[in-house]
């Protein structure tokens, strides 16, 4: 019947699409184990490119930069974003439309405009004041700028989901304003803080365009290094780095699947 052929056709379409989606990644992974440095054919399996990776000082520096950048920016963004997320919640009855626009601005701006604006700004600022040479400092500033909205929105929605009388209960039970923050608010939003940090971290590690335009000569991150290597000519080491990064994503995907399954189970237990 027509319906069955449609279903078969769609199923085939689905599998073809999956191949399409994973083929480039699969090839990268495959060739990272290539014994030779040919980009066209596999001659055998070997881990030589991974060994070379570890010995490559530039790559190790880039990796270090990536981590430092991600951690520093995520921490700063967490603090600022948490404050603003709470402020948005506490004063949500006011007309804060302008604030919402401001918060969404970094998310909405095309990343090339973002990167170039930052670059232009930092260059001129440096010319005028001698401060803020392009480097990890400028990159951290730029990353924090696009991380703040995500943290703010995650924290805001966590607060919105809370029973508002909980705040009053804390006041009623003798908690001073400082103690309310330390013993009530922060512990309650802990899961949101963790996921906001995780998201900021991922966004930072993954970013290329903005990092590229705000980087200095010594502050290349992994994506920047990879870009440079690609432009200079194909080096098989890139396959190895790329495979490691793809592996990290796969692990993150698996963890997120496990978490959502766990959430579903615990929610079922509650009801």
């Amino acid at each position: 019947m027509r319906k069955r052929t449609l279903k078969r056709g769609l199923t085939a379409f689905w599998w073809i699409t999956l191949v399409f989606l994973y083929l480039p990644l699969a090839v990268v992974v495959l060739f990272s184990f290539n014994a030779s440095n040919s980009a066209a054919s596999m001659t055998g399996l070997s881990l030589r490119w991974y060994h070379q990776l570890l010995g490559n000082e530039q790559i190790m520096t880039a990796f270090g930069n990536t981590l430092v950048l991600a951690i520093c920016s995520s921490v700063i963004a967490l603090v600022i974003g948490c404050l603003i997320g709470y402020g948005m919640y506490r004063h949500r009855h006011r007309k804060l439309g302008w604030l919402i626009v401001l918060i969404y601005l970094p998310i909405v701006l095309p990343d090339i405009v973002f990167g170039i604006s930052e670059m232009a700004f930092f260059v001129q600022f440096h010319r005028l004041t001698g401060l803020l040479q392009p480097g990890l400092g400028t990159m951290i500033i730029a990353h924090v700028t696009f991380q703040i909205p995500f943290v703010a929105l995650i924290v805001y929605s966590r607060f919105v989901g809370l029973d508002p009388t909980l705040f009053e209960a804390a006041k009623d039970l003798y908690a001073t304003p400082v103690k309310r923050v330390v013993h009530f608010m922060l512990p309650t939003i802990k899961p949101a803080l963790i996921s906001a940090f995780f998201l900021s971290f991922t966004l930072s590690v993954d970013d290329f365009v903005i990092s590229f335009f705000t980087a200095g000569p010594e502050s290349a991150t992994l994506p920047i290094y990879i870009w440079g290597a690609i432009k200079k000519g194909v080096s098989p080491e890139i396959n190895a780095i790329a495979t490691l990064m793809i592996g990290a994503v796969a692990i993150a995907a698996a963890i997120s699947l496990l978490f959502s399954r766990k959430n579903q189970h615990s929610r079922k237990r509650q009801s």
Partner: protein
Amino acid sequence: MTDLTNAVNTTERLDREETRVAAADAAARGKRGASSIRMQGLRKQFGRDAIALAGVDLDIHAGEFFTLLGPSGCGKTTLLRILAGLEEADDGQLTIGGKDVIDTPPHQRSVNTVFQSYALFPHLSVRENLAFGLKMRGVAAKAREAKVAEIARFIQLGDLVDRRIDQLSGGQRQRIALARALVCEPDVLLLDEPLSALDAGLRSQLQVELLRVQKRLGMTFVFVTHDQDEAMVMSDRIAVLDDGHIQQVGPPQEVYERPVNAFVARFMGHGNLYRIHRRDGSRLSTEIGTLQMDGDSQGELVLMRPETLDLKPGHVEGPNHLPGTITERLYRGSHAEFRINIADTTLQATVNNRGRRLPNVGDEVTVVVAPEDLVTLSE
């Protein structure tokens, strides 16, 4: 009727179990100062038009179970929140235990609240919830443990203390919320409709338990509810509120049997309110007939509670005898409710089932009311 029997049985059983513990508790606890509350001219407005409280004066005695009763929007919750410090009055004075607390923030007042939604902290265990107030006050860990154990015994929480919040039922949460408020030994306990989310059986059970706790502790309880039955069962005194004003304050019996106005009369129970056309001393000419009162009368309306009325078969002449026809009958086992048409007006009567024949729809009956059961009141 069955609810009351249940309540009495529960109390008796609990009392028997608790005699031994009670003595030890009282000795260990000492007499914690229960405080009186004085409110003068409390005013609260939300925005330009919403007046929640329009100048409230109230005196609550130390150690009494006091209820704020009224329909939703009458201001009772606002008043409670002002007592807790969660809301700031626009104007007026408030003293608790003689101390002026109008400017004191909630975390500095020796007042604790049991919230309608229980407001148990989800990120803490039951034990940690109970200890929260003590921890905030700087009580050392060992002392906290001891007090938590004491309150758990007092409220009979049993093994609930080891559970997580999301494992608890509504009734269990309510008792934890109560325990959490009591463990801090406040001068006054405030309860914001704590039983309204529970089903009827659980409600009556917890009403008794709350009452028992209050009597044992001798603590001042201020209770908010919109349920007049609940208020009458539990309170030493009731304040009926409407529209930001106090309508009447008094013991349940007084508020029910001698309401001062039509609102209180209708709110406290089924009415039978009639307009007085002409007054001749204690002789009232009303829309339902001529009635003879006991003593003086004031006000434009007369009230007859359905349960004070007698039904005689047929049409009988006599003072305060009102002939009519039964239009509706609701049989409720222990009693029956009747709607009777008298002089084109409806009257409700409730008659206890004494095993004798009850009248039917269409029967002609005469309603008899005793002069002392008539109450006059204003609009």
